[in-house]
């Protein structure tokens, strides 16, 4: 036991708590299994230890110890790779795949969360050593809240208006409002689709959003999340029953065609609205220098 024992233990505990808060199993169903959770809490523990030990190391004038943090960076990039590979493998067996963009988004956040854990543990230990335990607890809570805030991005509802539209056929062409979805040749399938399918039109609120929701990965994420939350009316060997999203080239609206098991319009609108906007899909043409910002308002 020395003067740093309590601060370090405190920092590690704070970091692990932060990791547990950020490790929630929600509708994304990942990670669902106990082993997955153990892996992430253990890695969170390592991250927290690194963050907590950094402060006493500096106080003891052991500046080289900070280079350990670079080791951490390498380690957690590995976590991202691990997540990406696992999810890619699993994705091939999904009825409605997540899509690469969504997977990358999940992998990025797994890496990012570990850095937040380091940061939280570091703050906790620093405040404990420099000031007192009470301030450290307060600072820790602030760091946890901040971490939680940093980790939640915007959702689809913030960037588009969602309206339900009936599906209809023009010859063999399936349409949601005026947006062409696909060609279904067989009468039987057409009847199934009219019976079980639902159509939604997502109208972008501004110019930036048009490119964002046009992104194929973002569209696949919408389909995946609705399939997870509402179920999906399809099986392997029925490629005609595939939920699809197509775009209106004129104004950037997208037409969502889904085949939910739970056919409730209100719920479906809520589910589509709460799909996360994927970091990698976000485009900001309004930030482009040659283009005046007013054009996009």
């Amino acid at each position, binding site marked *: 036991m020395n003067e740093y024992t309590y601060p370090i233990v405190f920092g590690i505990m704070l970091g692990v708590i932060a990791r547990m808060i950020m490790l929630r199993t929600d509708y994304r169903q990942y990670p669902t299994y106990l082993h997955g959770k153990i892996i992430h809490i253990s890695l969170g523990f390592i991250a927290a230890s690194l963050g907590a030990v950094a402060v006493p190391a500096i106080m003891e004038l052991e500046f080289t110890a900070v280079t350990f943090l670079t080791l951490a960076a390498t380690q957690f990039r590995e976590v991202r790779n691990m997540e990406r590979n696992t999810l890619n493998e699993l994705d091939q067996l999904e009825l409605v795949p997540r899509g690469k963009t969504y997977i990358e988004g999940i992998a990025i956040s797994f890496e990012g969360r570990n850095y937040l854990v380091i940061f939280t543990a570091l703050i906790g230990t620093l405040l404990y050593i420099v000031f007192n335990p009470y301030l450290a607890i307060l600072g820790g809570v602030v760091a946890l809240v901040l971490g939680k805030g940093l980790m939640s991005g915007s959702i689809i509802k913030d960037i588009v208006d969602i309206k339900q539209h009936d599906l209809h056929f023009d*010859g063999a062409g399936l349409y949601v409002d005026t947006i062409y979805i696909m060609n279904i040749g067989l009468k039987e399938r057409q009847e199934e689709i009219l019976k079980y399918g639902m159509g939604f039109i997502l109208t972008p609120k501004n110019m930036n959003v048009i490119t964002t929701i046009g992104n194929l990965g973002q569209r696949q994420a919408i389909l995946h999340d609705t399939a997870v939350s509402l179920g999906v009316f399809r099986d392997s060997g029925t490629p005609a029953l595939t939920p699809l999203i197509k775009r209106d080239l004129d104004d950037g609206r997208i037409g969502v065609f889904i085949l939910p098991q739970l056919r409730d319009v209100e719920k479906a609108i809520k589910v589509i609205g709460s799909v996360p906007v994927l970091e990698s899909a976000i485009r900001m043409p309004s930030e482009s220098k040659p283009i005046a910002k007013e054009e996009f308002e």
Partner: protein
Amino acid sequence: MKLEKAILAVVTTDKTRISGGAPIFICDNRNESEALAANLEAITDGIAHSLSDDLFIIVKH
């Protein structure tokens, strides 16, 4: 090169307007061709698309 899409079969009732390429199935009427297309769709895991009243293609996506 990996083919992303391919026409697996053609089902038609008008044999004067087709030749070559994919396997072709000639039917007598619309009902028969629909039934055949439905079967082919199930067997090949493709989608039956209708290009006109007397022509179906089964496409692998």
